[in-house]
């Protein structure tokens, strides 16, 4: 893959300050992709064989609930990583992902990179250190939303100094 792909990988926050040789190794599994608004990028239950470093546009993650349609779980934008399931068994997507706007991204071949990491534990450890904060941040955001900060349980704890 061209040196420019390695530098594009290094420009994404997930891989910022990764060594040039590591970026080169990852770049061999990388391609450029684009999705039009409304395009389905990932489908729940599908095999997780790729992950995306978002460079432009917005992606909505959603889950289908019977009788309620698609409920939006989270939106992701430039600088963020779409797709974590490629790294963990059973390698299946847990949500749908749809392009809300024109999306441009770097797509990285998951199985190919996984095989590479099995034989390159130094790079594997480096990537795990980079993916773990992403997973932790998503967990913390989920916990915050579980608190239902603005919901019925927090009605009297909103602001506006409102007393009953």
């Amino acid at each position, binding site marked *: 893959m061209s040196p420019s792909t390695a530098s594009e990988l290094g420009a994404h926050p997930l891989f910022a300050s990764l060594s040039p040789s590591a970026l080169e190794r990852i770049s061999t599994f990388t391609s450029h992709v684009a999705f039009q608004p409304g395009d389905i990028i990932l489908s729940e239950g599908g095999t997780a064989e790729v992950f995306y470093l978002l460079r432009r546009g917005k992606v909505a993650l959603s889950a289908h609930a019977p009788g309620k349609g*698609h409920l939006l779980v989270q939106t992701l934008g430039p600088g963020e990583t779409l797709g974590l399931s490629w790294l963990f068994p059973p390698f299946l997507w847990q949500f749908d992902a749809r392009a809300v706007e024109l999306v441009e991204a770097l797509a990285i071949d998951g199985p190919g990179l996984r095989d590479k990491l099995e034989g390159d534990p130094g790079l594997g450890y480096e990537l795990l250190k980079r993916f773990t904060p992403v997973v932790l941040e998503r967990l913390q*955001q989920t916990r915050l939303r579980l608190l239902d900060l603005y919901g019925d349980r927090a009605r009297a704890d909103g*602001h*506006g100094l409102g007393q009953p």
Partner: protein
Amino acid sequence: MTLADPRLAASTHGPFTPSVFHVVGRAQEAPDVVTLALESAEGRPLPFKPGQFNMLTAFGVGEVPISISSRPGHGPLMHTIREVGAVTRALCRAALGSPLGVRGPFGTDWGLDDFAQSDAVVVAGGIGLAPLRGAVQALLDRAGLPMGPRRVVVLVGARTPDQLIFKRDLEDWSRRGQVAVTVDMAEEGWEGNVGVVTHLVDQAAFDPNRAMALVCGPEVMMRFAIQALIERGVLPTSIRLRVSLERNMQCGTGLCGHCQLGPYILCKSGPVVTYPQASRLLTEAEL
């Protein structure tokens, strides 16, 4: 004459006597949130600064503290009220022309004169946007002027799209500054962001070295929003980070002590306090 007769309240003036205002406008912001526009029955506008609050009386029902959601010197006094009990229900349902009692203004303000050449970052959650509305309007008016901020960034979180308040203002502000909105939950068709408001802090375009932040919302949200701002590089100093706290304000004059939070009587020392003042209080249980 009964206790419910507003003429009784209008007859005398003192810190505990409400002035009579009439409802001259009302807007349903969300299913349980209403903004009331009020004008003095005596033709005397109320001088105030963004961030302060008034005690509002629904005659015959009771009195509650409500933040001022308008900007000084521009039209009627405005209060945005969430219906959480008997008094706020009566206020939310006040018809055009109804008399209400107003005592105030009370408390500290956002201190907007300190924002010269700063990147003003406003972070609001839920109805926490109400006490910030006047501040945002004033900051946008001053943006680019020598004594105003360099830029204004407004980050807003709400539970669902229909719980978002000041939708028209948000549209207007987005033409004059940077506005990002996120909701915790949404159904298909919502084209905006879904996620917690702290996530917007990571994405927003501002210079942390110039940033001065105003934060208001549920206290847990404020704690995490401040953490995100500090992680972005905003200095956790008195001048850089300000929050608005609420407790059980009753007298508004610092006499009754119902709104004590640690060493502070919030109706006088607050509601707007600096982050160094608030940092320990925001994490201490049972305060």
